[in-house]
C-alpha cells in the first residue's frame, strides 16, 4: 500500500461495463513526509475521498477486491483516508492543499 494525495478526477462515458458507478480520481503518490514523488496515476475510489485528501492506495489485482464479486478491471484503488502519519515519534500533520484563492486573499490582507 502507498500514500497519495487526491489532486483531481477523471470522467469517462465509454468504459468497461463493470466500471459503471465507480469514481476515478487522479492521485499524486507521496513519501511518508508527504512530499510528492513519482508520476500521478488514476485510481478507483472505494472510500469516498475528495480532492486534497491524503489517502492510501493499493496496486495490483488486490485493487479489485473492495468492489466484491463484480471484479472490475482496475489495478489501483484508494482503500483508506489518512488521518495522520507518525514517523519515528514525529507526527506529520495531514493538511489540505493551500488553495490559490486563499493565498491571494492573504496577500491582499497584508499591509504594504
Amino acid at each position, binding site marked *: 500500500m502507498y500514500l497519495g494525495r487526491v489532486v483531481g478526477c477523471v470522467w*469517462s462515458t*465509454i468504459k468497461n461495463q463493470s466500471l459503471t458507478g465507480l469514481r476515478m480520481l487522479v492521485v499524486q503518490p507521496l513519501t511518508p513526509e508527504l512530499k510528492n514523488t513519482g508520476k500521478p496515476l488514476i485510481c478507483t475510489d472505494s472510500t469516498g475521498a475528495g480532492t486534497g485528501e491524503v489517502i492510501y492506495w493499493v496496486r495490483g489485482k488486490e485493487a479489485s477486491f473492495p468492489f466484491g464479486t463484480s471484479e472490475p*478491471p482496475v489495478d489501483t484503488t484508494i482503500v483508506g483516508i489518512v488521518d495522520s502519519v507518525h514517523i519515528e515519534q514525529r507526527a506529520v500533520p495531514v493538511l489540505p492543499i493551500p488553495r490559490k484563492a486563499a493565498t491571494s486573499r492573504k496577500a491582499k490582507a497584508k499591509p504594504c
Partner: protein
Amino acid sequence: MILARVVGTVVATRKDPRLEGKKLLILKPISPEGKDESGYVVSVDTVSAGVGERVIAVAGSSARLAEGCKDTPVDNTIIGIVDEVHLD
C-alpha cells in the same frame, strides 16, 4: 491505471490463438495535463478506442479482468475513453 493517448495500431498475424480478434493499439502515456511521458506500451482494446483518443489503461493481472480478456495472455488493456480530466 494510467492515462494514455492512442498513437498507433499493431498488426500481428502469428500470435497466441487466444489473442485472435483482439485489437492491439500503441499507447503513449500522458500526464493529467496532457503532456507526453516516456515510453510506449502495446495494449488490448476493449472499448473501441481510436487513434488520437485519450484512454485509461490498466496493467498487470487486472488487465485480464476486462471483458473478453479472461484467461488470455494479456497484461495491458484499455478499459475506458476519457471525456475530461479535472485538476484542482
